[in-house]
């Protein structure tokens, strides 16, 4: 017993520096990633993907999905910052891992890449469903597209899709445009319309449908056209990020290296867009891009520098906030023209777009409304692909004091005049009345 506790203490002593290396506010990029495979040969067939991750400094821990020693946390601490599940056919994870443990992992703000494939297991479908993604129920169905398939000499099924309907977001897919179509062979999914956190990154073309290519259709397919999502992402409210793909092959060396020509298009590409797409997407999901940090909200009266404890109505004030973006290595100034501040009491009284000095400082100035009460400065920034910022600061606003009004109102001059002339008249009259002879 004594020995055991001592060894536990020793282990935790070793773990401590390891844990402190991980995910933190100042360094949001994931470091330790658990890769669950249903077959270790995936390590070889998907090696380009894994080696790009390794070269970017990720510490990959490969495990078989059935490994009986699987665990995401030990002594209440998570052992990993990210999880890659490349085990589409796994019916049950080994060890203490189940779909709830994975949901908890995401709920704790950690990231997940989940790839299904044709004949995905219920377990994988269940995890996807938790993230608002619904895979086609028909387990033999694949995405078929007779108009935008990849022209190939060996695929006569039109199930190798050349997809180029990508989400327009620099945060998710990087600034360099993905020229070549992305090759996809796998299962279709749709997004839960009530979940507005999940969005399509790679969508199918309008002519696509999800069906079993080798049997005749007896009823209309459940998923058709652009409603089919091939790859989706979800950013939870706590900024945990999830990528869900309907194709495991999308990540494979074979499709990374293969050339692509979309049917009906004269453009032939030496290399498919897969590598760029997957690399950029993995940068996003592991918080190497699109992660924002804001300094505190700064405000003061025009011409002053100190923050007042209270504002008077109709004061002119200046407001600023610093926003930085994580580049994977350091915090860079964030540049955007759509950051907004609200001066808020029950509802926004003032909503202004902030202007930026391109060095990360966003500022504006406005007049305090002529309504008094307890207000808030609110910056609620949501942008496609970026982490959400939600900042607020309370500030009371008071009305004019009695002595802050005008003292002499010109309009009242006749009244003043009437008073004083009456007084003077009275004074004169008192002499005349008493001493006239």
């Amino acid at each position, binding site marked *: 017993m004594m020995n055991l506790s001592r060894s536990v203490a020793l282990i935790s002593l070793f773990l401590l520096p390891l844990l402190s290396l991980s995910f933190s506010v100042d360094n949001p990029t994931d470091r330790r990633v658990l890769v669950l495979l249903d077959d270790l040969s995936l390590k070889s067939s998907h090696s380009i993907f894994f080696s790009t991750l390794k070269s970017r400094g990720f510490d990959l821990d490969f495990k078989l999905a059935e490994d009986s020693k699987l665990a995401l946390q030990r002594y209440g601490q998570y052992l990993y910052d990210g999880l890659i599940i490349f085990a589409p056919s796994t019916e049950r994870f080994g060890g203490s891992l189940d779909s709830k443990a994975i949901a908890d992992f995401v709920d704790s703000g950690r990231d997940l890449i989940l790839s299904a494939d044709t004949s995905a297991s219920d377990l994988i479908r269940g995890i996807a469903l938790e993230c608002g993604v619904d895979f086609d129920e028909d387990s033999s169905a694949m995405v078929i597209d007779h*108009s935008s398939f990849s022209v190939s000499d060996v695929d006569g099924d039109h199930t190798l899709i050349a997809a180029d309907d990508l989400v327009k977001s620099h945060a998710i897919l990087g600034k360099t445009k993905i020229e070549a179509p992305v090759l996809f062979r796998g299962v279709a999914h749709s997004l839960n319309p009530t979940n507005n956190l999940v969005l399509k990154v790679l969508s199918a073309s309008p002519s696509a449908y999800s069906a079993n290519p080798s049997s005749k259709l007896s009823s209309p397919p459940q998923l058709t056209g652009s409603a089919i999502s091939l790859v989706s992402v979800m950013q939870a409210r706590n900024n945990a990020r999830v990528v869900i793909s309907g194709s495991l092959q999308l990540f494979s060396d074979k499709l990374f290296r293969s050339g692509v020509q979309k049917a009906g298009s004269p453009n032939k590409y030496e290399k498919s867009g897969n590598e760029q797409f997957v690399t950029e997407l993995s940068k996003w999901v592991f918080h190497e891009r699109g992660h924002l940090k804001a300094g505190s909200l700064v405000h003061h009266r025009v011409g002053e520098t100190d923050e007042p404890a209270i504002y008077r109505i109709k004061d002119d004030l200046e407001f600023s906030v610093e926003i930085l973006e994580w580049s994977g290595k350091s915090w860079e100034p964030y540049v955007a023209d759509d950051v907004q501040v609200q001066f808020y009491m029950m509802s926004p009284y*003032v909503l202004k777009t902030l202007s930026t000095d391109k060095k990360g400082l966003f500022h504006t100035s406005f007049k305090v409304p002529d309504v008094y009460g307890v207000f808030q400065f609110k910056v609620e920034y949501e942008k496609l692909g970026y982490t959400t910022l939600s900042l607020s600061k309370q500030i009371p606003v008071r009305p004019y004091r009695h002595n802050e009004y005008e003292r002499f109102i010109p309009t009242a001059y006749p009244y003043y005049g009437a008073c004083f002339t009456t007084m003077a008249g009275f004074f004169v009259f008192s002499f005349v009345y008493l001493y006239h002879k």
Partner: protein
Amino acid sequence: MMERGLVRFLFLILAVAICGAASVFQPISDSHRSAALDVFVPVDGSYKSLEEAYEALKTLEILGIDKKSDLSSATCENVVKVLPLSSSTLKDALYALSVNGILKCKSGEDVPKDIVSKLQTGVKEAKLLLDFYYSVRGLVLVKEQFSGTDISLGDAEAVFRSIKALSQSDGKWRYSPNNPESSTFAAGLAFETLAGVISLAPSEIDHSLIQTLKTGITKLFDSIQKYDDGTFYFDESEGPISTTASVIRGLKSFAASESTGLNLPGEKIVGLAKFFLGVGIPGEAKDFFNQIDALTCLEDNRFSVPLILSLPSSVISLTKKEPLKVKVSTVLGSKAPALSVKLAQALSSGSKGSSVINNQELKFDAESATYFLESFPKNFDVGKYTFVFEILLDESANEKAYITEAQTKVPIAATGAITIENAEIAVLDSDVGSVESQKKLDLTKDEAVSLSANHLQKLRLSFQLTTPIGHVFKPHQAFLKLKHESQVEHIFLVKTSGKKSELFLDFLGLVEKLYYLSGKYEIQLTIGDASMENSLLSNIGHIELDLPERPEKAARPPLQPTDPYSRYVPKAEISHIFRIPEKLPAKQISLVFLGLIVLPFIGFLIGLTRLGVNIKSFPSSVGAATSALLFHGGIGAVLLLYVLFWVKAIGSVHDSKGTVFAGSVSVVRRTQNTVSPRSSIEQAEICLKDIYSSL
């Protein structure tokens, strides 16, 4: 055990997925060569270890990529460092010699004597299989590379026996005499070692020993695993690629070292070749090396050389009139011997059993080394087929024992342009069936048909699809999509019966499905099939539907996903509208009125002078005058006090730094902050009391 079985099963799925739907195996080609350069990337001009260097150099050499000059200086330095070193392990020595074999850092008579003696003692003292392997292989390499040596194992037969003692009855081998666990991977190593022993032996090894070894090999082949597509492999903890490669390497060395020949089942050898080709391009250096090295062993050996039939394209376009091309080559893509290829059968996947083409021999084009079928018979239609090829080797003496599959089955997709005719859309009256409005359609381009219908009417869409040879074509995808303004979509299948593809939409039966949504529906038709070259997506136009009101209990239309772009657009700016200040007259008007107000006073004064008022009765006695002055002075002082107060000359309560009035100004100010303007005056009083008590 079960776990491993499952892994195997999964690997099968993967392998099938990698090969795609078609089980066509392509020989090693240029894509491997370009990939090899990515996989074997040296760090600062050399590799981490000599083992890696050997694997990289060997693979690049086999693929015909010349990178030796870039790598030789740094790598050779390592080799020269390791070779004379007596402290280097047997394993290092072996790989140093292997690298030397490729780069020729040291050669000729310059025999590294230390290493030879080290290897020889290694053989003598070895107990473990790996020690035997490293030292025997090392000696073989020394013998090959350095001309001035005459290395031979004096007690070759004893060494042979002690290695053989590690073998198991099922053909597998143990790594050490103390460990009962046997492995297929070790068997491969053992064959290689034994082949080395045979070649180093001064005299011939006892024949019976070799014979028992051959039975062992046959037994080992009983434990081979098989996939459905006819590929064979050995599996173990090292992974199927490593294990199978080890066995093949061992077999090649063994067959090369002895003269009687090895009789292995041809089908399994072809299956092994297909296994390695089916792997595709491995991403890991080790697997890449094992794949290429094993394929080289299959390419050039003394038991059987498999030939692979491959198709440059398994998709045949009937409109382009391309001939069917077939290539036969060895696994590494080099030329096959003289042979003929026969298309035994062409089975259509639709009609089972019937063959369109029977026993047709393919013509050979020597220039491109392809066999081709010039023309298809007239009844060859679009669709999916399984072609069965047979390869007949010419009997003329081949130096090598070539083997082929008995029959190669290849899935073929024949595509063609489908003619679309008589496309029309019509709205019919339900009662009479009479045509209300009928429009001819050209589906090849978007149209702007505009129809209208109510729930008592029907919509009819029909068209005719025919294949190039005039048969009715049933496409896999024939959908009509109705899309309401609110983005709610409905898909209907267009069924083919007889010659026509037709869709009847009876809106009366569909009102519930359409969620009683009246309004404009866009009509979109998609026709597509894997064999159809002109698959199309056509916007036909729209239909204005007039449906009954939605009853209370009917289902509501499903939620539509929101557009992510519109969700994140910045909100419209809000600026506060300030209360408009009260309208006041201009200052001049006030001044004019002030003047008017002052006028009566002036009139009063003028009137007094006109009346000739005087103050003659002002008391003249001192006492009375004093009291009169005091009386009027008092009135004047009161009036003056009013004026002074008004112009803020006295009684200032406004500024704490200025005059303080009557003690409790600060309290008054504090109440202004703390007491809400909405509190009643009683509440304000309570506040004031609190403040007083706190002072």
